[in-house]
């Protein structure tokens, strides 16, 4: 993209290109926590209303009250921003931004379509987990800095819970990474191209099982109910954000819904083929693109690629939304656990389960070599052993399986280190 901009702007320097690119990408990504939060909060209200046999918001903005959240947001902005007397002011102010920054930084490495990613990291999956783990700092510092007993309790619970749940969630994420042999989310997504039988969740029974473990741990790690011990409004008044009000409070919520979206999108990419739908629309369009519908229409290929990626993006967002919906549904269905039950769930159930599934997948793939519906991955090139030719812009690289075989050359072992020594 930056090259493209640089071609547009007639200056010799390249940094404006980078700068513009960064700005544009950030501007696109900010929509996910901001607009996403609006929609998700509205959804949560409607869904909880239906579950509790209410209507939910109906007035603001037409009959579905779909502007209710916006109105609330405006109200929150206009509210007074109270800082308790015993608070550690700096940390108190800093905390919401910290957790929001964490969940926003995650989006940086989250691909939304083949090659549509702000920064294509080769450790993206891992990076996502790590930065998601940082979000807890906001909560902890907020809880401590509020100088209130309730907040402190919430924060300590949060600390214990998050540190515990990083173990099983890491184990769960390792499994698709191990199957695909890469942590690059784009590659992982593209390895599930084609029909839905290529999705990793159907790869073998163990992956199917570990998806559920992952979803549980993800729910816990973004402290949603039934794991929302940090804000247990029945025992602690509102947990870590008891003392917060106005904009800071809403920023916490934007961060929470943003991270809900992120873990759901991660689940979609790792287990449900990411932007590759149950039907390989993307692949079809790509084939159109590669030989434009059989007869050469000059230069329409980029358009088709764009269209394909657009559809893939919509596909991914749809899947992620389904994940968020399930989280909301769970929240309004299950009662909250006690803290000891939360920790027990982690160490006595999730960790052993995920470890077992991990070994199971390992055996399934390597030792038993059992079959799996996914034809894409078997014998596919592993990350680092791949040399992809730079002529193709990263957007078009193996957006479907067939293209992948053509554009990846397998270099056994000699990963041209000659340059290095």
């Amino acid at each position: 993209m930056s090259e493209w901009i640089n071609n547009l702007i007639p200056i010799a320097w390249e940094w404006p290109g980078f700068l513009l690119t960064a700005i544009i990408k950030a501007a696109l990504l900010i929509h996910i926590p901001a607009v996403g939060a609006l929609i998700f909060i509205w959804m949560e209200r409607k869904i909880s209303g239906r579950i509790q046999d209410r209507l939910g918001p109906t007035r603001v903005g037409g009959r579905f009250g779909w502007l209710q959240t916006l109105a609330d947001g405006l109200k929150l902005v206009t509210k007074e921003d109270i800082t308790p007397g015993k608070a550690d002011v700096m940390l108190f102010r800093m905390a919401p931004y910290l957790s929001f920054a964490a969940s926003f930084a995650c989006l940086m490495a989250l691909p939304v379509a083949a090659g549509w990613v702000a920064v294509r990291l080769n450790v993206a999956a891992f990076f996502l987990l790590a930065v998601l783990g940082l979000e807890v700092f906001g909560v902890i510092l907020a809880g401590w800095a509020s100088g209130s007993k309730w907040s402190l309790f919430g924060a300590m619970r949060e600390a214990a819970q998050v540190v515990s749940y990083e173990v099983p969630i890491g184990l769960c994420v390792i499994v698709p990474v191990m199957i695909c042999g890469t942590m690059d989310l784009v590659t992982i997504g593209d390895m599930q191209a084609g029909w839905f039988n290529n999705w990793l969740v159907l790869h073998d029974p163990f992956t199917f099982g570990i998806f559920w473990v992952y979803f549980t741990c993800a729910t816990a790690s973004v402290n949603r109910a039934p794991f929302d011990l940090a804000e247990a409004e029945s025992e602690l008044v509102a947990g870590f954000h008891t003392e917060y009000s106005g904009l800071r409070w809403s920023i916490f919520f934007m961060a929470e819904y943003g991270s809900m979206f992120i873990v759901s999108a991660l689940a979609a990419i790792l287990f449900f083929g990411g932007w590759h739908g149950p039907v390989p629309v993307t692949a079809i369009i790509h084939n159109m693109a590669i030989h434009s519908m059989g007869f050469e229409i000059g230069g329409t290929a980029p358009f088709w690629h764009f269209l394909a990626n657009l559809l893939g993006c919509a596909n991914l967002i749809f899947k992620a939304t389904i994940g968020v919906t399930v989280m909301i549904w769970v929240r309004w269905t299950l009662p909250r656990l006690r803290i000891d039950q939360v920790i027990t769930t982690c160490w006595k159930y999730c960790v052993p389960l995920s470890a077992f599934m991990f070994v199971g997948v390992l055996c399934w793939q390597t030792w038993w070599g059992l079959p799996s519906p996914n034809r894409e991955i078997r014998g596919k090139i592993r990350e680092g052993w791949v040399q992809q030719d730079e002529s193709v812009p990263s957007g078009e690289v193996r957006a479907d399986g067939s293209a992948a075989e053509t554009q990846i050359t397998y270099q056994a072992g000699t990963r041209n280190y000659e340059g290095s020594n």
Partner: protein
Amino acid sequence: MLLIAAINWHSFFFLLFALVTCGFALGVLFSSNIVRMAFYLTIALGTTSGLFILAGAHFVGAMQLMIYVGGTLVLLIFGVMLTAHEGAVLMKTRAGDWVVAVIAGGSLLALLISAAVSIPTWRSNEVTPADLTADDSHSTSSVGLALIGVRTDIATEKDATLRRGLSGYLLAFEIVSVHLLVVLVGAAYLARAKQRLATTGDV
């Protein structure tokens, strides 16, 4: 503007991260509020991971974020909260200690910096982007393979003794993992030893 034109952006971001790191490290040093210290330390270590990524060690950077910042520091703050009451939050150190410490540390700093700049090949960077290969940044799988005992990066090493000598970290990996397990068990035991004694005392 000309200056901006000439900027080497790699160096720029390095300086950015380095300054933030050092600044917050000093913040840790000079702050007397333990919780703020923890907060500064978080940021310092996070930016350190940025430095790692700038040096091409993506995986190490991610590990730094995950284990250090996500795990260790949360643990630390946990401990801070467990032990934090008024007396503990603010503990003043005598000025004399400060003076001695700063003198000793300053001398050490001078020593280290002089050592750092004393080697010309360290000071100059003659690596051109041309002889960087694509997978120098894609080092994850080579790291993983090295952890299970396969050194793909020196598979093409000409010198046989070097190849043999530098093969793999499997043993170290196993030892570290076992050690980690032992440590966690021991830590849990230590942390609950007190209560155990109390109960036995009651009985």
